[in-house]
């Protein structure tokens, strides 16, 4: 199964709900397209909900990083919420925990954008 991505608006934050696998090929390119599209529309506060993501490979990790850079260069921020143990392990192995803002709770993640905006 490839990745399924849907977005919803919570106040000033665009939450992207991802489900499935973010891997080389369709999964990673769908993710890339969505981030670019949202960034181009001017959405600056992006929260990626990975709760339903079962697996991310190195290409998927590359797309997360690329999305982070795109959004940051655009004056916004991309944060992560709902990581499974597998995905947390990936961020530990790749040291990307030091790069991404990671939250366990969506409400807390949403509030963190408000704090920065003010």
């Amino acid at each position: 199964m490839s990745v399924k991505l849907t977005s919803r608006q919570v106040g000033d934050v665009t939450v992207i709900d991802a489900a499935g696998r973010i891997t080389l090929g369709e999964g990673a390119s769908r993710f890339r397209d969505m981030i670019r599209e949202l960034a181009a529309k001017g959405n600056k506060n992006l929260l990626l909900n990975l709760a339903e993501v079962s697996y991310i490979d190195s290409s998927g990790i590359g797309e997360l990083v690329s999305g982070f850079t795109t959004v940051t260069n655009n004056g916004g921020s991309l944060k992560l919420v709902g990581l499974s143990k597998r995905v947390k392990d990936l961020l530990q192995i790749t040291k990307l925990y030091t790069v991404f803002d990671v939250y366990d709770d969506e409400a807390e993640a949403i509030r963190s954008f408000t704090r920065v905006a003010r």
Partner: protein
Amino acid sequence: MGGCKRGDIERGDIEGTETELESNLQSVDKAEAIVLQEAKKAGFDDEVQHQIGAAVREVVVNAVVHGNRYNRNKKVYLDIGRSKNKLSVTIGDEGSGFDPNAVADPLAPDNLLRQSGRGLLLARAFVDELDVHPRPGGGTEVRLVKNLIKS
């Protein structure tokens, strides 16, 4: 299952399979499925099976994309050996060779935001042994070993 099975092999107490795969991304799924079947037979639990599958995917992607460069005339060779205490998977390509020491360290602060270069790091993290060496006859071979720890 796909792929061209070259046959079952038996070496003493080691059983396994040898498979030839095409140089395309479908082979990544095929290789994972074949290895997962063997990992299950060997008795690895679901989480360890996932780790072995993830390591195999990373190495097969490297073989297809960087080794064989999607060349339809080149194959990816998947050899699996299963004994009572470990699973070993060797993935070979017909590329122009590869020096793992020449890959930029993906954990160096300057490289953390690079888009690529993490495949071997992840594969290595998921198995007990990983070694890269030239493949006899040309290309690169990567051997992965996962030990079976019985509880």
